[in-house]
């Protein structure tokens, strides 16, 4: 929403995945419960990261933010590599094997839960943005930074708040992902471009867009995997990203003309 490209997004996801993994293997905490721990923790972490690392280092200039978050992602990714090695970790929860019949096919339970959660979060955010003061402040800063500052909105705080919220959502996503996915230090990289593609396709600043974008991409990924084969199939997402940026940068539901 704030038009900040956060390159460290994937790295934060990776951290959250590891956090969830360790909570499960060392603490016996079920991933869905881990949400209650990790979401606030990552919210706080994200807030502090933006307020006291990213903002000062980039001097507030948006063009630097990309480089700074790149630096951060390098640090985080390689710290993870150093601490936890590149061995793939997975967790084993009983219900990961449960399949739900949705008429056409059977879907793994965790994936259905993830879908439901995504929709729920989308709705929550929409409510947040339109009904709460904080949400309105975020939208104000998004549209007119100087003006927002003049009416007394603490812009640095708002940016940090947004980052914190984004990180919290990432943490939730990680918990939803954990039952059916694997964890390595490189896992974040795969998601970075997918996340950007989702946002760009859906349109910056639009939650419906992100949801729709995510679904479209999921379908695209599945079909290109089907048509082009396993290795070539990954291309689908990248090609969409390029095409959208070139020909329809506002995405499907975007705001900026």
């Amino acid at each position, binding site marked *: 929403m704030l038009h900040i490209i956060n390159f460290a997004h994937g790295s934060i996801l990776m951290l959250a995945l590891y956090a969830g993994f360790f909570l499960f293997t060392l603490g016996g905490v079920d991933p869905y419960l881990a949400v209650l721990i990790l979401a606030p923790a990552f919210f706080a972490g994200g807030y502090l990261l933006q307020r006291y690392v990213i903002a000062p280092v980039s001097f507030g200039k948006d063009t630097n933010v990309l480089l700074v978050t790149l630096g951060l992602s390098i640090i985080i990714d390689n710290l993870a590599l*150093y601490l936890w090695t590149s061995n793939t970790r997975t967790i084993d929860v009983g219900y990961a094997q449960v399949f739900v019949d949705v008429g056409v096919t059977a879907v793994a339970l965790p994936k259905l839960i993830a879908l439901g959660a995504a929709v729920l979060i989308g709705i929550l955010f929409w409510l947040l943005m339109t009904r709460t003061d904080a949400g309105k402040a975020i939208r104000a800063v998004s549209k007119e930074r100087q003006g927002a500052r003049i009416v007394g909105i603490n812009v640095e705080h708002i940016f940090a708040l947004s980052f914190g919220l984004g990180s919290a959502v990432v943490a939730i996503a990680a918990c939803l992902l954990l039952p059916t996915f694997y964890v390595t230090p490189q896992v974040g990289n795969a998601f970075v471009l997918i996340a950007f593609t989702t946002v760009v396709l859906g349109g910056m600043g639009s939650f419906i867009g992100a949801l729709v974008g995510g679904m479209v991409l999921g379908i695209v990924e599945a079909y290109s995997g089907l048509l082009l084969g396993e290795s070539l199939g990954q291309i689908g997402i*990248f090609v969409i990203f390029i095409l959208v940026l070139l020909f329809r940068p506002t995405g499907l539901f975007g705001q900026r003309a």
Partner: protein
Amino acid sequence: MKKILLVIIVFFLVLPLFVESRFWLGFWTTTLFFALLGQSWNILGGYGGQVSFGHAVFFGTGAYVSAVLQVRLGLDAWTSAAIAVAAGALVGAFIGALSFRYGLRGSYFALVTLAFAEVFRVLANAWDFTGSGFGMLVPMKPGAANLQFADRSWFYYAILLLVVLAYALTWRVERSRFGAYLLAIRENEDAARALGINAFRIKLAAITLSGAMAAMAGVFYIQYYLFVDSHVGYGPAMSVNALLAPLIGGAGTVLGPLIGAVALGSLAELTSLLLGKEPGVNLLAFGVLLLVILRFLPNGLMGLLRGRS
């Protein structure tokens, strides 16, 4: 300034005479390689202000085209090298034409270059023609005609020659109208257009030159290591390496990438010494250095040196 330049050149020229160990020769060869790759990024990103996150797309093209032409089509190394460099220029022109025609700037341009690099990576990994998952192996046939040298110090001199040529070219660009226009576009593209600059054409020229130079580095790489796969050639690691040296050393300066490459290479050796050789340690240090530079020395190490003189 000229004196310092002379000292630097002499230093690099006589280096192999004093360096006995294969390790250190390799260190300097690799450092010069990154100085070349970094300069290619510098032209587009440092002078032109168009930050690229996918420079591997040009590098990988140079390495792969050279390898494929030699292995699959039996062409000689020199011809393959020339065609590979031209291929790099072509890829540059292609990506530039699309991106700049549709007005991509800043972060969006950076991400699009990354996306292109990923597309090429997937393609190289999928096609048997490019060796699919196994990569391309160029058979070892030492001899100048094959651009392979039994004596490793010849590789050193080769990369040194390439670096001197590339840096001399960059120096000329800096002092030309093309360079002035590039800087103007970097500082303020709209103002530049208002002053009669065809921004599209200038940026296109920059990315084409940048692509050719990066492909040249790719050609060196394949001749030196005789191996490339999709991860090495088109992966994010090489893209990151391409931008680290100029950013650390000083983007938009001629010597920046060289200084950055030396600094990074030295840092890598230092961290290996202090923290061991576990994977990730080097890059971790690089990431920290990048943030430190961005915060305290936005003009890179060159900024520090300039402040002194």
